[in-house]
């Protein structure tokens, strides 16, 4: 029974090794296609230069000096592009030729991964292999264990995208952003930093154990100079307006929009002292003080909104009060003038 289980396990590892070898083959083809594209581009530019040279020769032979000068200025304009494409072509052609590993090497890599990390998990739906780390604690903040998942089908896109993801198994995300479960991880993408080149080199050469080792070592190391979210701000809350991270003691809750804000992005009602964000605060046009919407009312005449303090007992703002007084005074004057007009001749 044990022997059967062992044989079954070996068969799985060999099948997995074959899948990985196929993906490395596709990766090599992708690199060669890249060289082919650049070579074709370079060839087109060479043929353009050849055409220009024929035109130039014909122009000089026929004494068309103005046309010859036009050809020269076109060639001159294209020279800068030409040197860039030439340099790019040289770099690609001279880049190290990675030798594909043998099946036995990849099998040995998988055995080593099992020895270093325990079990290798194979997700047959996603065609991905993964290892699980021990629970990670950085600066006394527990972040939980992580799963480093390498997608076999995505290895061929190594030069344009990262073929692996970091999944938090017992996430303790940053207070200001649920998507950040590690200072150097965002949306399950690892920010490789110093390990970027060597990780890609390891995958390219089929050194999968080295890849997993480096990914785990990055997760276990905190770089305070360049985290996505600093561990000092890990337990904080993000201001909904400006996005800065604040501690839970320094944040202000706006009950009108149900969000948290920092002191710079919040205010309080001058009438009822309710905390609110600057967006929900209303500036009274009369006294210019911030008030909440519960402490405002409309003027009965002009229907503009004021704080309740700036409206009189009749619900009129100062301007409308003055307007009313003026109107009353005018009416009184008119009334006092009318009897003189009716006096007998």
């Amino acid at each position, binding site marked *: 029974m044990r022997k059967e289980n062992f044989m079954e396990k070996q068969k799985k590892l060999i099948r997995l090794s074959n899948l990985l070898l196929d993906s490395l083959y596709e990766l090599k083809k992708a690199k060669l296609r890249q060289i082919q594209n650049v070579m074709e581009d370079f060839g087109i530019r060479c043929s353009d230069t050849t055409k220009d040279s024929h035109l130039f020769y014909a122009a000089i032979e026929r004494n068309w000096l103005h046309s010859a000068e036009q050809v020269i200025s076109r060639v001159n304009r294209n020279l800068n592009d030409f040197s860039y494409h030439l340099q790019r072509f040289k770099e690609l052609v001279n880049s190290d030729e990675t030798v594909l590993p043998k099946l036995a090497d990849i099998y040995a890599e998988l055995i080593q991964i099992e020895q270093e990390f325990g079990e290798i998990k194979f997700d047959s739906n996603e065609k991905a292999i993964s290892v699980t780390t021990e629970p990670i604690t950085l600066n006394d903040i527990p972040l939980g264990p992580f799963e480093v998942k390498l997608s076999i089908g995505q290895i061929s896109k190594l030069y344009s995208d990262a073929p692996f993801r970091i999944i938090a198994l017992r996430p303790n995300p940053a207070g200001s952003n649920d998507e950040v479960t590690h200072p150097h991880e965002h949306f399950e993408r690892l920010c490789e930093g*110093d390990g970027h080149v060597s990780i890609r080199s390891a995958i390219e050469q089929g050194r999968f*154990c080295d890849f997993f080792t480096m990914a785990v070592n990055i997760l276990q190391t905190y770089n305070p100079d360049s985290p996505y979210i600093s561990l000092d701000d890990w337990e904080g809350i993000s201001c909904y307006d400006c996005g800065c991270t604040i501690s839970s003691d320094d944040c202000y809750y706006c009950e009108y929009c149900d969000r948290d804000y920092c002191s710079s992005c919040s205010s309080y009602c001058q009438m009822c002292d309710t905390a609110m964000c600057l967006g929900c605060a209303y500036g009274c046009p009369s006294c210019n003080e911030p008030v909440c919407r519960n402490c405002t009312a409309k003027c009965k005449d002009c229907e503009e909104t004021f704080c309740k303090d700036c409206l009189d007992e009749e619900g009129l703002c100062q301007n409308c009060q003055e307007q009313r007084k003026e109107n009353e005074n005018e009416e009184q004057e008119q009334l006092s003038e009318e009897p003189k007009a009716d006096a007998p001749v």
Partner: protein
Amino acid sequence: MRVVRLSSIADRMYEIVLNKESINKFNERKITMRILFINNSGAGYADYVNIAENTTIDQFFAIKMQGQQENDCLIRVNRQPVPKDYVLQEGDRVTITPTKIEGARLVIA
């Protein structure tokens, strides 16, 4: 006469030095061996290197990873952990991976 003697002594010394150099080169060719060295720090390096016979893994680390501490690296020979005094053999595969690799903040262009 004295000049001729001095000249012959100089020629003889020259021969001795030359022979010594030849012997040294012969000895050198005889006592080096080739191993595969994979260095996962920085930009990475994976190639064959020549080392002297009877070089221990400790000595190899001191030569190739100058300024670095062994405690800061994961060292494997032929995919296995080995003691410090392990003597490297012809064809061995040595991998050195730093345990502290600093990540960064993802910058989206």
